[in-house]
């Protein structure tokens, strides 16, 4: 179990990645694909956050009690990276939702199968 | 031994290529004024011939006009150089282009063909590509103009725009592009194996590069160049391309395009591998077998063709293999015969195609069976046809006899009786499929050809000129344009590993 203790988050990340990937590729409903994408991206955020953690350290905000010793703070860089990744994820989801709305307005459904049928009929 | 030739910088080879390139542009721009357009073609033909013949004295005295433009790829430059072999091919092509331009003006106007601008522009483009092939100094330049020639002939093959023409175009492209791809691989391999692509008389490859590899490389070259020179398995595009207008079949499919293939073969055999190396790796026997077979089978097939142009096409396939046969014999006479046949065959075959065109324009008849008694109506045309037929069969007064004579001499010197037999047999076969036409024209009578009624002078005069030219080549081969000495010097250069 010691192997699991130290890095159980990696297993969770891998598990979430698998769910997200399945959601994106397996599901037929476009909105479910979008949800799958968000799960996928959250898994990666988890992976980065876990990478930044040092046992027994605190939030990387300068605290007079702890002083300037870097070892006392967790590694702030992955957090910054993930902040940007979150912005990107939100933007992608925003664009995806806008696309889904136009698709829904045009085809009246978000099921890929019905959309493809209606596309064939109209072409 | 002619002294070692040194090359001097001269713009002439480049000018030869550019003359018809500029003409092609001018032609396409002056599409609304037919007369101006036609004058561009004729002016370009005359200038090109002048430029090419201006190099004649220099090349004969052993100099080599050369121009290196720029590096087309690291280590490989776009370079043009006029050596005897290249000059004799360019000279015959440009001379015959003059006659063909007059002839095609008459032909196109007589039949009121559509899209004449595209026709004349691509014709000019083909000629500039032919000049590029003739004067290419290395394999890369040769390959570039080789492919440009394939593409610029395509619009001429599909000129009729009928479904048959389009499928002929597809077949034409399928064969020639696949040949081009094989040639590209061969050139690539040569670049990697030998490091250089420049033509050097006597070849620059050496047996140290592996016997089997070299034979494989040679067979790639054989396929690449063979497609255009109508070697037997790869020839079937030529008869179907006869759907093109007759001047196209006359100049391109008898003189420029197919001769480019055979000329390329001579370059590969003489200037890349070298006759001795080719002999060592067994390439000569391989080619001799294919060429011999092509000659015999093509002549037999020619007999079976009723359509006149298809019969001439198969005869071209046969005669091209004469030239290939010449390059296979290790004796200077063999090479001389082969190279000289490039010019003589061009003159004779173009005459026959011109006659076929004149007959078609005047009587609308294409098949040999419908030509009974045509001699009464078109005696001049049929007279020229007879001259051409005599030459092709290898009878004395016409040039064809001389080239066949040297070829035969070559086979005797190298002791190859089978090839000698093939040559003689094919002479008979040629007679077999050409003389019946002459006999049918003059000695059979028919009611619809009674009064004298020749085609337009614009077509008949070029006809007579080419016939006269073939006879000139027969009687006084080293005549005005020294074709004989050009071929002789090229042959000596290659076989005796002497001057380039």
């Amino acid at each position, binding site marked *: 179990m010691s192997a699991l203790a130290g890095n159980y988050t990696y297993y969770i990340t891998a598990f979430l990645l698998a769910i997200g990937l399945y959601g994106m590729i397996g599901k037929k409903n476009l909105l479910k694909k979008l949800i799958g994408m968000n799960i996928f991206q959250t898994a990666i955020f988890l992976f980065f956050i876990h990478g930044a953690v040092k046992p027994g350290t605190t939030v990387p905000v300068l605290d007079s009690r702890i002083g300037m010793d870097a070892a006392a703070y967790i590694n702030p860089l992955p957090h910054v990276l993930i902040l940007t990744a979150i912005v990107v994820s939100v933007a992608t989801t925003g664009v995806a939702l806008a696309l889904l709305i136009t698709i829904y307005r045009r085809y009246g459904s978000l099921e890929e199968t019905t959309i493809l049928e209606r596309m064939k009929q109209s072409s | 031994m002619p002294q070692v030739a040194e090359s001097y910088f001269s713009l002439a080879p480049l000018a030869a290529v550019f003359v018809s390139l500029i003409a092609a542009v001018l032609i396409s721009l002056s599409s609304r004024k037919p007369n101006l357009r036609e004058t561009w073609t004729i002016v370009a033909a005359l200038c090109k011939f002048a430029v090419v013949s201006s190099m004649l004295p220099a090349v004969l005295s052993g100099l080599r006009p050369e121009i290196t433009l720029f590096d087309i790829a690291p280590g490989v430059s776009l370079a043009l150089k006029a050596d005897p072999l290249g000059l004799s091919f360019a000279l015959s092509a440009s001379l015959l282009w003059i006659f063909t331009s007059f002839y095609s003006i008459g032909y196109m106007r007589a039949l009121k063909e559509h899209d004449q601008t595209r026709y004349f522009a691509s014709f000019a483009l083909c000629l500039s590509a032919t000049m590029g092939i003739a004067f290419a100094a290395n394999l890369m330049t040769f390959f570039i103009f080789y492919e440009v020639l394939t593409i610029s002939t395509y619009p001429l093959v599909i000129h009729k725009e009928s479904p048959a023409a389009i499928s002929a175009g597809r077949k034409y492209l399928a064969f020639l592009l696949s040949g081009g791809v094989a040639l590209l*691989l061969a050139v690539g391999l040569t670049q990697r194996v030998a490091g250089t692509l420049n033509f050097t008389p006597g070849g620059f490859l050496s047996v140290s590069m592996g016997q089997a590899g070299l034979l494989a490389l040679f067979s790639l070259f054989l396929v690449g160049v063979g497609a255009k020179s109508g070697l037997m398995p790869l020839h079937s595009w030529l008869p179907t391309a006869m759907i093109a207008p007759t001047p196209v079949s006359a100049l391109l499919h008898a003189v420029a395009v197919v001769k480019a293939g055979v000329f390329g073969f001579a370059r590969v055999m003489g200037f890349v591998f070298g006759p001795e190396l080719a002999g060592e790796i067994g390439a000569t026997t391989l080619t001799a077998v294919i060429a011999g077979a092509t000659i015999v089978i093509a002549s037999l097939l020619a007999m079976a063709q009723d359509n006149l142009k298809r019969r001439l096409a198969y005869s071209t396939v046969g005669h091209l293999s004469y030239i290939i046969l010449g390059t296979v014999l290790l004796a200077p006479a063999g090479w001389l015969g082969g190279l000289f046949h490039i010019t003589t065959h061009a003159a004779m075959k173009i005459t026959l195609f011109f006659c076929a065109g004149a007959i078609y324009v005047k009587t609308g008849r294409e098949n040999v069976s419908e030509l009974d008694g045509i001699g009464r109506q078109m005696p001049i045309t049929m007279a020229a046809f007879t001259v051409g037929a005599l030459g092709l069969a290898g009878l004395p007064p016409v040039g064809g006899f001389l080239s066949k004579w040297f070829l035969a001499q070559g086979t005797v010197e190298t002791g190859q009786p089978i090839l000698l037999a093939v040559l003689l047999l094919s002479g008979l076969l040629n007679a077999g499929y050409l003389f019946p036409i002459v006999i049918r024209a003059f000695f059979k009578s028919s009611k619809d050809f009674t009064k004298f009624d020749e085609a337009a002078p614009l077509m008949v005069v070029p006809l007579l000129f080419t016939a006269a030219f073939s006879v000139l080549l027969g009687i006084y081969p080293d005549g005005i344009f020294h074709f004989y000495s050009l071929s002789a010097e090229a042959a000596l250069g290659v076989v005796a590993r002497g001057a380039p």
Partner: protein
Amino acid sequence: MSHLPVLIPITLLLSAFLIPLAGYVKRDFAFAIASVGAFLAFAFSLRGLLMVLSQGEIRYHLGGWAPPIGIEYVLDALSAFMAAVVTLIGLVVLIYSRRSVLHEVPQRVVPLYALAMLLLAGLVGIIVTGDLFNLFVFLEISSLSAYALMAIGDDRAPVASFRYLILGSIAGSFYVLGVGFLYFSTGSLNMADVAQRLPALYQSRAVAAAAIFIFIALGLKMALFPLHLWLPDVYTYAPSAVTALIAPIMTKVSAYALIRMLLTVFQPHYLRDMLPVTSVIAWLGAAGILYGSIMAIAQSDFRRMLAYSSVSQIGYIGLGIGLANPLGLIGALLHILNHAFMKACLFLVAGSIRFRTGRWEVSSFAGLGRKMPWTMAAFTVAALSMVGIPPAAGFFSKWYLLLGGIDRGNWFFVATILLSSLLAAVYFFRVLEQVYAGRSEESAFKNVSDPPASMLFPTIILGAGVLVLGLLNSIIVSRILELVVAPLNEPRG
């Protein structure tokens, strides 16, 4: 300290921000700012290229933070060459797009140009950045603007764009995952710094995982063969000006990133000998060449045919990278340039045909040869170049790839390169036949003629460019590309 490396992306970003403002005042300002921005960016990248060739690479770090902490922008032979190509094609297509956009999506002009500039900024950012994570940010900027641009098209465009969004974000996330693995094993994000720290870690599985994730991600963005599923629909349903902007450069920039990873980050020795990554790419590239050509033959819609031919041409670039020998890589890099010109010209012709006749099926092109002579002349030159007929540019990239394949001694690759030019001949000459020798029955094309000068002139420039590139390719190769492939010449030790 020259500002060039950062000036190229900024001018594009700035004009992307100015366009919405100017758009309120007057719609035409959008096009004006876009073309000024693109022209400035091209001028800077050209100047950068000349400076790099004379003085060597230019390094620039942002915000005063010296590398490896700060984000570093690098203009070396490879990135300056790519920046010049991308901005030039962007400029030419932008000039072309004015009339075409007004014709197809008149009510979306301002957002379209803002997004186009953002797309160009993102692509140029990927090229110029020397920081692994910054590359992810620019990758997402360009992808997001591409998703939005592609959705502007007709009814089926949003569906195609959504599928591309899903696949694109998978690629982006894989890339971030790969960078995460690299960061946690080497402790740095700067490419040069990571490159120094990696050799010691070549045995670790994390670095191997990073390499695999990054190459899958870039392979997907590059539409390398099995990962190309998004490409055909997107190129077919997006507005023609958008496809003309995206097709020639977007996949090439991911190919550039792949080459940057091969040459700079993971040394070629690692990816070629220790991990079979390059040979996998080579085999995928070769398979892509054949798949793309065969699928292109099967299409009747002209845009779809060009889309599949893009898949096969990207296969060439993949093959060139996969060969990982100097000549192969020169072939790949030259093909990035050649294909950008050829594909841009072909899509501009497609746009002009749509602008005049509104039809896409090849069968409806009968008689266009006479009605649109100049456009079809440019099309013929580009088509012949795609088939690989010398002296057009397409032939020479095939020439180097061929030599690279022969050097590598892999006859399947050599055969694929040669066979594909025959396959390309099939589907391009089928169109040429239709254009020049087709019988046009319906009289619908009575008043069809060449498109207006602002559309025709860029098409002609690109067509002529293909020829000029062919003749001058050895200057490009010897002056620029040979510098780029120098690291490949190291012994295999």
